[in-house]
């Protein structure tokens, strides 16, 4: 019972428990490197080099002004007060998340003599805590320039080890006008993208170009990620203004572990998949149990109470459904119809009622001869009245037990069908997780990926079976006597 409540809570709370998408393979920036280990792995095997993701910039989307305070902002020459860092709350990079961005504002009055080249530097110095390299790093930035004087502005994006020659620089040509839309570095500052090589200085040799992430973050040290803006102010005697909006200022260094259960081969969080799988399994199990029980109840009651030719026809039909092998039938029908949760619910409801119908029929047959039914008939009760008022309440105990015990059947059916590859591409289920495991060469070695879905299926099935047993014991007078 406790297990069931837990699973129900998990199923309902899935979106709260995990912010990630269980199926989407295109998330930018991706949440973690593919085939990551779970983060608790390091406690289990302290000898192994396990690193987590490092997010260098606290709130990269500038949703609130607080984030700006955590960045370092300086200008050269230092005394220059014409450049300010501001927070703008109502504008943002539209493809990022929501409004809010930081702005470097250059404003000089016409009457000052204080002009020349001014550099503004927005950066974050962060610590890379591991003594071994990460798997990948990914830097993003988006900016938009408002430049009415058509001043020459140069923007550099820099990632460097503090106090070292090791740095990568994305350099843009000079901007001499207002940009029409947001600019993002292309190619991106991404160690996994080979075109990114053109940002790397070639003083470090071929290894640097081959493995930028491993060469950049060789040791635990302080690193700096920043935007350098150079305003070439050559307009003496004029009033000069320029604004550079900066948003989605982001650097993530991918370690080899993520989340509670790591990630799969498409960088998806396995724990999220497990949680969303609960939703599918419970919905499917309960709905198909209800439908198939209703069909079985109707047919069993009709056959048992009405009897005669009707009974013969229904029961022979039931026999037929019982001998038709349901495993290949499910496979063929699922492959032919489009595989989805609703198709499967339909199939299980239509094909899975036979055993229960027989039970109900037997019960109805014996109830029909009982004195209280005879009495009801003698008083003039019609067929419908007798069935609903006298027979039905007496088979309800069977109904409850069957409801509980046929849930696992539906859940395991779903599991192996998905595992065979007959799944709905829009939903993630436990069976599909295991299908993915088999599809990935190293999947079978990742026990934290293989074991949880299997155990979940077993636990949820076991919970329903035990519930069925308990109901049986409470509702079945025969069993109660024996105790």
């Amino acid at each position, binding site marked *: 019972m406790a297990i069931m409540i837990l699973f129900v809570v998990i199923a309902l709370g899935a979106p709260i428990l995990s912010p990630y998408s269980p199926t989407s393979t295109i998330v930018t920036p991706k949440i973690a490197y593919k085939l990551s280990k779970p983060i608790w792995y390091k406690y289990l095997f302290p000898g192994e080099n396990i690193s987590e993701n490092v997010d260098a910039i606290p709130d990269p989307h500038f949703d609130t002004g607080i984030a700006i305070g955590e960045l370092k902002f300086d200008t050269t020459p230092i005394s220059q007060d014409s450049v300010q860092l501001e927070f703008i709350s109502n504008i943002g990079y539209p493809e990022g998340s929501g409004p809010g961005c930081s702005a470097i504002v250059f404003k000089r009055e016409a009457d000052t003599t204080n002009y020349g080249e001014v550099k503004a530097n927005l950066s974050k110095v962060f610590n890379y805590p591991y003594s071994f390299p990460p798997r990948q790093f990914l830097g993003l930035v988006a900016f938009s320039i408002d430049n009415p004087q058509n001043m020459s502005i140069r923007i550099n994006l820099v990632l460097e080890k503090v106090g070292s020659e090791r740095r990568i620089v994305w350099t843009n040509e000079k901007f001499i006008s207002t940009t029409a839309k947001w600019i993002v570095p292309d190619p991106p500052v991404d160690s996994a993208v080979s075109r990114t090589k053109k940002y790397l200085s070639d003083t470090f040799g071929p290894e640097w170009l081959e493995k930028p992430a491993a060469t950049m973050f060789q040791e635990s040290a302080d690193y700096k990620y920043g935007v350098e803006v150079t305003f070439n102010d050559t307009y003496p005697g004029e009033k000069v203004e320029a604004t550079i909006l900066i948003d989605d200022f982001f650097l993530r260094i991918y370690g080899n572990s993520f989340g509670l259960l790591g990630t799969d081969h498409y960088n998806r969080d396995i724990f999220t998949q497990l949680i969303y799988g609960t939703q599918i399994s419970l919905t499917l199990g309960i709905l198909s149990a209800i439908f198939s029980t209703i069909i079985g109840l109707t047919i069993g009651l009709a056959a048992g109470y009405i009897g005669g030719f009707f009974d013969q026809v229904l029961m022979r039909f039931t026999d037929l459904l019982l*001998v038709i*092998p*349901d495993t290949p*039938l499910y496979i*063929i029908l699922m492959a032919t119809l489009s595989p989805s949760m609703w198709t499967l619910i339909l199939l299980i409801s239509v094909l899975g009622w036979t055993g229960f119908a027989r039970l109900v029929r037997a019960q109805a047959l014996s109830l029909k001869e009982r004195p209280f039914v005879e009495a009801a008939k003698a008083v003039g009760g019609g067929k419908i009245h007798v069935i609903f008022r006298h027979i039905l309440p007496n088979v309800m105990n069977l109904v409850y037990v069957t409801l509980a015990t046929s849930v696992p059947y539906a859940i395991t059916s779903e*599991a192996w069908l998905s595992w065979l590859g007959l799944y709905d591409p829009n939903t993630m289920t436990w069976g599909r997780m*295991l299908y993915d495991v*088999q599809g990935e060469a190293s999947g079978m070695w990742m026990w934290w990926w293989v074991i949880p879905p*299997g155990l979940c299926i077993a636990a949820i099935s076991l919970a329903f079976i035990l519930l069925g047993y308990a109901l049986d014991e409470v509702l079945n007078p025969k069993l109660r006597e*024996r105790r």
Partner: protein
Amino acid sequence: MGLKTYILKRVIYTIILIFAVISVNFIIFMMMPQDPAELLMSSKRIGVGDVIESLREQWGFNDPLHVRYIRYVVNMITGRFGYSYRTQKPVALEVGERLQNTLILVIPPEIVSVIVGVVLGTVAAQKRGKWFDNLSVTSSLAIYSLPVFWIAMMLVIIFSFNLQWFPSSHTYPDFWLLNPPTDIFEAFGTRLTHLILPWTTLFLISCGAWVLLARASVLEAITEDYVITARAKGLKERTVLFRHTLRNAMLPIITDIAITFGFTLSGAIVTEQVFVYPGLGWWIWKAIEVSDYPVLQAIFFVIALCVIIANFIADLMYGIIDPRIKYG
């Protein structure tokens, strides 16, 4: 009604059932969305309208429905399942081979699990409420509720990948294709190592159910008067348990063996997928990938036939073993 009439009735009933299965088969595959003639042509990449039409004529697709149905029934009964679209070989030949493979896979673990399950269940029933009982019931339930393919995957991971004791798939090593083994014993041994993991899987999934069933039916019998009599006679506890109690509790178990045969066959279909075992289940998958309808129909019919025959045997056994049965 005597035993003969009972058997005759069951035979007639079984024959009707076989006809019904053939009819269902006919209907299901008639409703399939793709036209076999077009499928065959597209597999050969010569999709010409005239050719398709002449094929339809040749195969008799343009005949009226009842003619097609009668021809279908006759073909199914005489084992003329047609030719596989994929391999162009007669399906009947392949069915025999695959069925044999599947039976090799299914029958030994079924027998072992019945024996082990019944013994464990009997002992558990006798020690009702003690730790042995609790342990066997709990573990049976737990294993029973695990998905078959997951058990198989775990076995592969543990015994094949990590310990490297047994091969993980197929029925024989790849190099046998080029130079088949000469030593019979070596050949036999190698096949055996390929079978052990699938056998273990099927054994595990069916054993739990047997423990539970045997325990339940022994519990029912253990309170009967004749058991008390046997105890009163001073017989050994073991004799009482296995000679008197179990013997009477065996009835539902024996009939259930046949009925669960279908269940085990289904389990085998999934198990074959994990171990790439060339039986009926694996073949279904191959056939579905290319919509190979003759093969699918044949497999369907053969599996249903197996289940029907198993049920028939169960009915007969029931009639012969149980002296109390009222035939009919």
